[in-house]
């Protein structure tokens, strides 16, 4: 089946739940306004189940209702993992056999972003979700430049280390800082190095849209929940080739 509707307690009932705040003092009119918004969002009928005044001149609402939209799963576009997930042992073995040298990775948080939690989760020995970070891979040479690295510094380090891949983490998204920083970074690499000599450019962060790689000028985007092994498997796939 490719057509689905939201599920409340019966197949096809189309029930959803939303909550929102309106800048209105709580009264009958405000509740009517909330129902009107829900109707315009496609909830029909809409049941206002909770309304609570908040601060001065605001009301918070919870609305349940039926939507009549249909979802066609055939039309969904996502980035499916298009490379095999390898074990740490396989990753080290492939690099050793096919590349015959260690694969060099440089990682950083760029711009004003001081949140190293993402890059550290992927690179640090400690890793995340029970998987050790890229530093633990014998055949990967990892440089973690840490936080608030400038783009020129990053390009220089990548050049000096002869980086095969550059990993950039961006957590802060205020005023689209993550998109601006990423574009500045990829442009700097394009300017500094000819196409064949450029390292593989990878960005990661919880708020990236994985479909935007081409738009941002990078080779790959990793979004929330990515583990070190996935990144390492991708590096092997993109830079070394298949394990067989």
């Amino acid at each position, binding site marked *: 089946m490719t057509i689905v509707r939201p599920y409340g307690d019966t197949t096809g009932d189309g029930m959803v739940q939303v*909550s*929102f*705040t309106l800048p209105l003092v709580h009264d009958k009119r405000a509740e009517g306004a909330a129902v009107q918004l829900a109707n315009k969002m496609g909830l029909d009928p809409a049941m206002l189940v909770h309304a*609570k005044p*908040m*601060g*001065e001149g*605001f009301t*918070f609402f919870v609305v349940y209702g039926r939507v009549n939209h249909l979802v066609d799963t055939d039309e969904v576009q996502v980035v499916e993992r298009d490379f095999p997930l390898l074990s740490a042992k396989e990753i080290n073995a492939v690099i050793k056999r096919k590349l015959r040298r260690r694969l060099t990775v440089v990682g950083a948080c760029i711009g*004003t*972003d*001081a*949140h*190293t*939690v993402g890059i*550290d989760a992927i690179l*640090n*020995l*400690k890793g995340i979700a029970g998987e050790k970070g890229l530093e633990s891979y014998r055949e990967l040479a990892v440089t973690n430049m*840490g*936080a*608030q690295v400038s783009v020129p510094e990053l390009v220089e380090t990548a050049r000096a280390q002869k980086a095969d891949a550059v990993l950039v983490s961006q957590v*802060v998204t*205020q*005023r689209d*800082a993550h998109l601006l920083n990423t574009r500045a970074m990829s442009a700097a690499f394009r300017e500094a190095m000819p196409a064949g000599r450029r390292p593989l450019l990878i960005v990661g962060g*919880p708020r990236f849209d994985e479909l935007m790689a081409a738009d941002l000028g990078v080779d790959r985007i990793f979004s*929330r929940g990515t583990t070190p092994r996935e990144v390492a498997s991708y590096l092997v796939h993109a830079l070394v080739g298949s394990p067989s």
Partner: protein
Amino acid sequence: MGKLGLDPEVVRRARELAVRAGQPVVDLARSHTTVSVERAVLRLAGVRGADSDGIPWVNRLVDAVRADVGLGHGVAVPVFHALAAEGLADVTVLAQKAAAGAVRFGVPEKKGEVTAARRAARRAANAGLKVVDRRRAERERLIRRWGDAPRRPWIYLIVATGDIYEDIPQAQAAARAGADVIAVIRSTGQSLLDYVPEGATREGFAGTYATQENFRLMRAALDETSRELGRYVRLTNYASGLCMPEIAALAGLERLDMMLNDSMYGILFRDINPIRTFVDQRFSRQVHARAGIIINTGEDNYLTTADAVEAAHTVTVSQLLNEFFAHEAGLADWQLGLGHAFEINPEVPESFRLELAHALLARELFPDAPLKWMPPTKHMTGDVFRGNLLDGFFNLVGALTGQGILLVGMMTEAVVTPWLSDRDIALQNVRYVLSGAGNLHEDFVPAPGGFIQGRAHEVLGEAVGLLERVVEDGLLNAIADGTFGIMKRPADRGKGLDGVARHEPGYYNPVTEALES
């Protein structure tokens, strides 16, 4: 008598080890100065404002003195000697002339000139400290007049828009909704700026710049709201990063009430040079002690990078070190908001009992400190419903273990900066727990020899073991080896090292002199 049956001999041993681990670092701090310590001296001595590029005159003046005579003598004597030689009355004017290259600095050779320069520096610095003293008295008076927070824990809420003029109404709304403490998060990146921006600011990334004018504006707005609410609402900012001593001084001058001020945070999480940090730390804590400011330490951060069960004892070790460094700098127990956090993976069996054990251990080790209890962040997944439940259990631990300062957890942690409704739901959660179970600590006594007692003893034992290794290795080596928060930070690396200087014979700092007298 405590609830955990801790062995007083083990507790005494832990404290003694913390003193032995910390003392060499204190000695290091006493024999060095930094550009930021010297700039803080000049701020207290009356240098104000910034040049047309926004670089503060204190930076220009310290750079000029440093270029001529280095930093090792302290800037006070060269600056006040030059002030007299130039026949000027205003140190800011001297800074402007120095920036234009019109002043040569030197350390006077004649004893009488040194004495005169010291006397003038002392008079100027004492005028700044007198403002700090007046602000402290003012705080005490306003608390008497308006009343204090109605209960412990104090409810601590964050605002962070980047624009001070947006922050103000948000902070006032948060105070009206029940917050006892407002923290204005700083713009990311400020910790690595080697100057303090000037003036009111309206642009920031995930936070608002800490500036003297922003401090003043927010404190004035909260005074207005405090008067209206009939309770004094406290204001918090961050004395951390490369300008920690200066920000501490500005906080004292503008009557901020609490400051985040951890002994090792900058080293571990911002890769600031360890020596720079310890020198800046000691000075900033001395200023906070004088200003009656409560410090908040940052142990919660260890648990966000390392595993909260495995690393529980590193929190205890850091709390003991923070306590030692704080006492050494003159802070009293009521000023020690020692940090810890609810960061154990909720999938771990007995996670709630482990949290209780850790929180109670901190409570019993530091009975007179207003502990700062930090909400879950690492295991907030975006499932806001589960997040709200976790925050409720976090609040319950806070109530059961008598925490002093409770940072309100947001169910939208890691999703968005808090919405108005997120804050309202979070406060509703806190109110429910505190009104329903706020006094449950009276009945809550862990079973003797039970799980909670056993775990607390285990963590304290591991902390003593780690402190023994730190004493043996030296604290700087332990930091270099990645003992805390798994980051390796050697003493000869990190940002801000070039701003550190060893004292020359005759080093003089009128602020340190006054604070240590």
